[in-house]
């Protein structure tokens, strides 16, 4: 490894924002969330992200497994619309307070 670059923080995920639940005008379906992935702006660009794992990480007051941080895992399932928004399903539905929060879009399962 190049000496000067050790200790750098590597971000092996892409940043994403939780926009809300899949919904129509008056009904929402919380089992699927909508995620805006940074830098992804068209339906075609989403193809690379299909199937990639997502993690919604949040903090809690009570320590679980020795950590205040908790995680809900999910997967990118498909694109949503024409502008690069993505639908995702999580192991348990995202809590409504997560709207607007950060989500990590990992690069695995990788196909490169």
């Amino acid at each position, binding site marked *: *490894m190049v000496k000067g670059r050790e200790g750098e923080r*590597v971000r092996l995920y892409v940043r994403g924002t939780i926009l809300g639940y899949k919904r129509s005008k008056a009904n929402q379906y919380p089992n699927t969330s909508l995620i805006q992935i940074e830098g992804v702006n068209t339906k075609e660009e989403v193809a690379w992200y299909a199937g990639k794992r997502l993690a919604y990480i949040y903090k809690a007051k009570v320590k679980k497994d020795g950590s205040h941080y908790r995680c809900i895992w999910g997967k990118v399932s498909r694109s949503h619309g024409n502008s690069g928004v993505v639908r995702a399903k999580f192991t348990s539905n995202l809590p409504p307070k997560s709207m607007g929060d950060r989500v990590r879009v990992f690069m695995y399962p*990788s196909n490169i």
Partner: protein
Amino acid sequence: FPFPLTYIARLLRIHISERKREEEAESNQNSFAAMAPRKTPVVSRNPQLIRGVGKYSRSKMYHKRGLWAIKAKNGGVFPKHDPKPKAAATPVKPSKFYPADDIKMPLPNKRKAKPTKLRASITPGTVLILLAGRFKGKRVVFLKQLTSGLLLVTGPFKVNGVPLRRVNQAYVIGTSTKVDISGTNVDKFDDKYFAKAAEKKNKKGEGEFFEADKERRRASCHKTRRMTRRLSMQHCLNRLRQCQI
């Protein structure tokens, strides 16, 4: 002369091949009527027009296979072999235990797991980027794919601290950088090498730490494991140095 030449040729050919078979049989010291093992694979003389429909009828095939010649050789009758003497049947003991109800047996599962298909971008010597796990973000050299489908990978340890390790293909990005590791011998390493019992072994550079019950196990495999790893990794390292990475 009523018979065509081809017929005679066939007769002769069959006769000759029969002779050859006889000779083989004799050389194998079987009884003269036994069949010798085939040297060429069995090819059907009856090409299929459509699946299930052959070109030639039964009588024509009888002719083509030369069954008439075999019969002629055996005096007009198809040769019969005495059935092989059956091994004396071991007396079957009546079972001691009969279950009260009929037990449902699970259906037989004859599936054989294959190792996952290796991506085209990953060949021995490729530099990979690990995406997850303890060494995420590290660039690592790919050695080979193990029978379980996992990839065998090494830092090498001296370069970036990643030891000989197994990694799943899905958690890896293959770069286009390749290192020439031809000659690096990785045959010794397979999934069994990474089995749990061996995990208590000493790694390179760590201090000795003996426990009474594990002492013998460690002592026996310790030196050999270190040596095999050192030798193979040294080679890999040399290769890397040559590539000036």
